[in-house]
Each structure stands twice: as C-alpha cells, then as structure tokens.
C-alpha cells in the first residue's frame, strides 16, 4: 500500500479508504455474482447438467471471493472469530449464510435434489443481500451508507447472476426460453434504474465531491456496456437472431463485467471517508463565531455547501 502523507490542512477532508483493496472488492464482485447466479439458476428450471454447472460455478465464485478476503484480513488464522456476533454484524451473517450456501449446494450437487438446489438458490440470494448490507452498515463511507446502495448491489448481483446463468445454461445445452430471456433483460434494466435512484439519492443527501466525480465518470459505462448493449442483444435473440450460445456468452460478459466494474468503483474508487467537520467556527477574542466548515463536501445535510 502506498504511503499517504497529506498536508495538515488536507487531514480534515474526505480521503479514499485504503484498508479494503482489490481483495475485498473481489469478494463483493465474485460473491455477488455467485449468489445471483445460484438464485437465478435455481428457479430457471434447468436440466441436471446445466443446473449442476450453475451450482458449481456459483459456489466457486463465492468461494473465490471469500478466499480473497481471507488473504486481506490482518489475522487470517483467527478467521473463525467472524462467527461471534450474529446479533448485529452483517459480516457474521454473511459468513453464516456462506456455510448454508455450501451445505445446500454440496447436497444439490451430490444428490441432484431439486429442493436442495432451491435452498442453495435462496441461500445465494441471502448471501447477496448480506453483502449489500455489509457495505450499507459502514457509516464512515457516505457512498456506501446511503440506503439506496442496498437495492443497487442486490440488483447488480441479480443482473449478473441472470446473465451468467443463461450463459452457463446455453453452453450446457439447456433450452433458454423467451421467459428466461425477458427476465434477464428486465433485471439488467432494473439495475440501471437502481443506479439512477442511488446516484440521485446520494446527490440530494450530500457526499464528498471526489466520490461524486468518480461515480459520474462511471455512469456512462454502466449505461452503454452494462445496460443498452446486453438488453439489445437479448432483444435480438427474442426477435429470432440465431447463435444463442455465443450471444448469451457476450451478454454475460457485458452484464457481469459491468457489474464487476460497478462494484470495484463503489468499493475502491468512490469510497471516500466522511471526513471531519466543525459545526461552528469558535469564537476568538471579541469576534463572532463563524459558519460551519466541512472540507471536501458537495453539500451539507442542511443544503449548505461546506
């Protein structure tokens, strides 16, 4: 990690967080898409071969993410302590749900049980939701704590999972009907709507200027690469375009790739801290007190610029 030596006057301003690096981002990227994949595939009605491939892919993604984060924590050999605070910690709940994912998933893989597959899907959805709540619980990062970040992360996980499930299904030889294609297209569009809702909400409640700049720089990429192109590709398939397998693979790359980019942007690049502020500049001598100062913020909660 690069040393960070700000000037004295910069210490109060929001700073990009430096504790969760690409390994933490990988947990959200892989875990979210893996959870979404398990959920979508469980209810897609795939045959045994495609369902098995989707189960293995989903669990592999989740395991990859958790392994990455294990390499990031400061005391990896104490990792089992993560199970000690289920009452309020979403990180504990994520870890508990992960056990359920792997338990149900292993049972589904070994027995082919439809019930176990459905359970694994539901647990995958719960894993995705837990990850969204982990970010939202962090009050120190304004771009995360906004309530609209939860539906955004869930929506992107579902959109990524749907696109990946269709690709896995098509490559496994499953027949992908119009219903599954329309559902995936709707999820991609819902993600774009969730993004817009999140960005609008963040602008109205106020956020560090630097975070807003990062998010606005990313927005066109999500729109074109993550929404318009995959939606058009799915629409083309619905209209009868041949080559379902390769097209769905392209859709998966676009939807999951843009989702990964979104989460990396959110977890790393837009993750500016709250920063520090003075609500009232103190009285000095006989002079009056001054207005509040909140360096680096676009808008104060009361609507005034800091």
């Amino acid at each position: 990690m690069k040393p960070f030596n700000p000037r004295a006057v910069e210490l109060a301003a929001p700073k990009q967080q430096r504790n969760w690096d690409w390994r933490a981002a990988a947990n959200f990227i892989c875990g979210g898409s893996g959870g979404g994949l398990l959920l979508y595939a469980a209810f897609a009605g795939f045959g045994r071969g495609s369902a098995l491939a989707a189960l293995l892919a989903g669990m592999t993604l989740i395991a990859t993410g958790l392994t990455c984060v294990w390499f990031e924590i400061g005391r990896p050999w104490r990792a089992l302590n993560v199970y000690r605070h289920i009452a309020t910690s979403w990180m504990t709940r994520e870890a508990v749900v992960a056990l359920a994912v792997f338990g149900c998933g292993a049972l589904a893989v070994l027995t082919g049980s439809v019930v176990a597959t459905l359970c694994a899907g539901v647990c995958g959805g719960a894993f995705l939701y837990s990850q969204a709540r982990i970010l939202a619980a962090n009050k120190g990062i304004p771009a995360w704590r906004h309530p609209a970040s939860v539906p955004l992360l869930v929506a992107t996980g579902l959109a990524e999972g749907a696109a990946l499930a269709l690709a896995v299904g098509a490559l496994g030889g499953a027949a992908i009907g119009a219903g599954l294609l329309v559902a995936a297209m709707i999820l991609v569009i819902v993600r774009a709507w969730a993004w817009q809702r999140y960005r609008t909400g963040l602008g109205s409640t106020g956020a560090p200027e630097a975070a807003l700049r990062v998010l606005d720089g990313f927005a066109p990429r999500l729109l074109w690469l993550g929404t318009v192109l995959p939606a058009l590709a799915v629409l083309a398939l619905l209209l009868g375009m041949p080559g379902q397998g390769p097209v769905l693979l392209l859709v998966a790359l676009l939807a999951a790739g843009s989702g990964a980019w979104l989460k990396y942007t959110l977890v790393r690049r837009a993750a500016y801290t709250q920063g520090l502020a003075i609500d009232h500049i103190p009285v000095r001598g006989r002079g009056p007190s001054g207005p509040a100062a909140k360096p680096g913020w676009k808008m104060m909660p009361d609507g005034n610029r800091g």
Partner: protein
Amino acid sequence: MTRYVMTIDLRRCVGCQTCTAACKGANATPPGIQWRRVLDIESGEFPDVRRSFLPVACMHCGDPPCESVCPTRATTRRADGLVAIDYELCIGCANCVMACPYDARSIVHEPRYAYGDSPMASEAKRFDPARIGVSMKCTFCKDRIDYAERTGKVPGVDPEVTPACVNSCISGAMGFGDIEDADSGVSKLLAGTQYFRMHEELGTEPGVYYVWDKS
C-alpha cells in the same frame, strides 16, 4: 451510571499538538499512526477567512457503529462509556475502520519503527505484537480509568487517572469526566457554554463535546 466524556474548548485550542505528542508517548503508537490529531481547518473566502484547530480521536460513541459491525465482538462499549478493543479477538477485517465516521481507527500490518527496520531501545521495549494486524484507536487511556476504579481517584480531576492528552493540554482546552455527575468539571462547563458533537446527525451519540461559545 457513569458516562465518561471529553470536552474540547475550541476557543482555547492553539493547535500546538502537545496532546498528539502526549498520546504518542503514552500509547507508543508506531510511526504514521496518531490516535489523537489536531487538524488545521481553513474556512471562508478572502478577505473573511478563518483558521481553526480541531483535536480529533475516537469519539467513544454512545451508539458506536464500529461495535455493531464488528463480526468478532472485539469492539465493545463498556458500561462507563469507553469503546474498547480486545486485540486477542480482532481479526483485522477493517469493517470497523469503514464504519467509523471519524477516521479514528487504523490497522498496521507489519512492525514499523522510526528509523528503518530496527527498533530503537525505547521502541523495542514498548513494542506490542498484539497490536499488529488488528484494529486500534484511542482508548481514552483506559488503563488509567481502570486504575481510578481500583483507587477511588476521579478521572478528570486526578492527573494519574486522566487521559494523557487532557493532562498535557497547555491551554486547558481539554477536559474529561463523568457527564452523569452534575458536579463534574465537564458537566459544569457544558452547562454554561454552547457546544456541538461532530457528525451527530449520523446517530452515533459521540462522547466528545466541542465548545465554541459561551451560553
């Protein structure tokens, strides 16, 4: 019930950083890590500009977000209001670092010394391996508060049971005591002044009160 809080009279702070140095000396934090800092804030526009000094550290919140996100229960809020970390339980996941809106927490993943890879004698003597790879922050000098419990001395009054930063403050800007005790120094100060608590809108109920004017 006891609720220890800190008062910082911003009218008195001169930005000398003595509290920063005292904290460093008392807690032997590694280079680059300061549990107590004094920020230099410039505000306003020419010609009406202001320069203010803002001492910051852990706010020992009444509803600490670091405590609720901690997956290991390493971070706990004590009955006397101090937010403490059990270094033996912490896994260094940094969730609490992200949850804290006051930039109060840090994690050091490998030993750091002032001059290269080898510690000075003083650093070697005070090096604590338990603090490597785990979250750490200002403790309100909890060993001193615990000592007060055993001896009957009064934090905020008796220097040996008062946080090092408060003892060191050259301008008397920093105070410490039990806000539930109406006769404590902090209660009397807050009764006669206007104050704010930083980022109170986030619902953290911080335990540091910044005084900015008289009532």
